[in-house]
């Protein structure tokens, strides 16, 4: 992560704060910061979402393309993730600086969405071996305020929820020429069922305790993090330990319990806000980047 240099005194101050479950910005160890989410703000994408978690800003765009499926998985569509750390997020992202963090994020997203039950990709396949939908998910990191993995995964889930795939009819004539007919009616679209999609929850171990949604300062004094992808139903689709330090086994199980509980809560709250935003329909004005 982009670490801000802290002196030893500041680090001990943060660690002591966490020990009595009262962090420097007043939150308890398992509380998220203020998050506001907006979907459907970019016209030329099939689906998009912008998430601002305190001062972490992430923009996700999903483009649906018709392509040939992979030879070894002929009857399934697929998701392709791409993460770009733009240089205006942090000076060291300039050039190839942000590549390492971007690959880490991409690997985690691929892991989280690797299980077949997470997102029904078989329905994305139009003609086995010949034609299927490929969803290109592009994550753009605009500002780093700590806890980038959680924010990115939530924004990805929101963007997938907001994705509208035009319905396509395939007519198979006698000759093997397949006839594709894409409807241009904006309402005749198919939506993705993201109820089983996971969101990532990062538990940072500081001292002997672990906290959720660590700010940039808290991330600087944490040696090991456990990132878990949790679905609304509470099942775990990916876990990765990241960071230079090591964790002892029992604290891992403890962290997993907390992760599951908080993860379920985050998922439910997210689905609620998405549905609520959907109801407002076209009346709601998009705030975008004005604020």
């Amino acid at each position, binding site marked *: 992560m982009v670490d801000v240099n802290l002196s030893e005194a500041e680090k001990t101050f943060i660690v002591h704060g966490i020990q009595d479950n009262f962090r420097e910005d007043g939150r308890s160890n398992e509380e998220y910061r203020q998050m506001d989410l907006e979907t459907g703000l970019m016209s030329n994408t099939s689906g998009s979402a912008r998430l601002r978690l305190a001062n972490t800003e992430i923009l996700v765009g999903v483009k649906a393309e018709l392509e040939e499926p992979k*030879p*070894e998985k002929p009857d399934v569509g697929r998701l392709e993730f791409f993460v770009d750390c733009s240089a205006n997020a942090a000076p060291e992202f300039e050039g190839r600086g942000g590549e390492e963090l971007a*690959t*880490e994020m*991409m*690997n985690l997203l*691929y*892991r*989280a969405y*690797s*299980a*077949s*039950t*997470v997102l029904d990709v078989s329905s994305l396949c139009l003609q086995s071996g010949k034609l299927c939908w490929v969803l290109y998910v592009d994550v753009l990191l605009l500002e780093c305020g700590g806890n980038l993995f959680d924010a990115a995964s939530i924004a990805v889930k929101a963007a997938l929820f907001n994705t509208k795939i035009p319905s396509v009819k395939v007519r198979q004539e006698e000759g093997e020429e397949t006839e594709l007919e894409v409807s241009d009616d904006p309402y005749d679209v198919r939506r993705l069922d993201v109820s089983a999609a996971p969101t990532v929850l990062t538990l940072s171990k500081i001292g002997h305790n672990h906290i959720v949604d660590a700010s940039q300062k808290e991330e600087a004094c944490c040696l*090991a993090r*456990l990132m878990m992808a949790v*679905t609304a139903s*509470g*099942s*775990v*689709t*990916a*876990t*990765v*330990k*990241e*960071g*230079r*330090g*090591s*964790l*002892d*086994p029992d604290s*891992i*199980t403890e962290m*997993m*319990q907390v992760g*599951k509980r908080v993860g379920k809560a985050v998922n439910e709250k997210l689905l609620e806000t998405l549905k609520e935003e959907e109801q407002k329909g076209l009346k709601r004005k998009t705030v975008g980047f004005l604020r």
Partner: protein
Amino acid sequence: MPDTRRITGPEETQSPFAFCPQFLAQSAEAFSDGKRRDGRKAEADHRPVFLKAGLISQAKGSAFAELDKTKVVCAVYGPHEVARREDFSMQGQISCEVKFAPFSCRVRRQHVQDGREKDLSTQLLEALEPAVRLDSFPKSQVDVFVTVLENDGSALSAAITCASLALADAGIEMYDLVVACTARIHGTSILVDPSFSEENLKTVSGEKPGGQVTLGFMPSLRQVSALCYHGDTDLDVLSQATQRCQDTCHKLYQVVQDTLVKSVEQRMNNS
């Protein structure tokens, strides 16, 4: 862009396996008549492990690990200077690179490092960094290069164990050796040290698709240095699998220590 730095064959080629019917229909059941597909009886049976330290003359330290058909070679270089580095730090650095040989898997792999190899390299770095005393070589860097010669399942755990043996053989100061183990969750059974076919078992329809967890463990300090899992299971099945991996790591620890002791003794009496 044609790869002008290598001899190139035709543009697009297909693997012969794509046209072979019985390979496409992967079977779903893990146990056939009481035994695992490669003859191991219990779920917790680990394949016979063969380890050897100090086989590459050019490397500072090296090791070779063989889990029945999975063969991994690791070489450690350094500590040497870091080429271009502006920040001056009293802590040493480790850089890891995992590479699959083009002939290591059934379907031929490309020479250029793809996403999966980058992922394994990061996981290897995660596993080794906590175990190495970085302050013992300030301002310099240790390189760990792993080549997977043949991949018959749990390549990552073989790479981690082999790399930590190579680091010890290189005389790099370490808090503890790192031993790793992989487990495949398939329905209710937890298969330790899965082979390649067990890694790609088809999910039984209706059940949860299970998953695969790899654990990097420092047995004498009882610390987990790496944990990576993907799939879709409940939490308790996952922590059960992690526990099963931990017990196997304790068993493996003994084998790694004996190999290291044997190689030090052998070097002592012929030097």
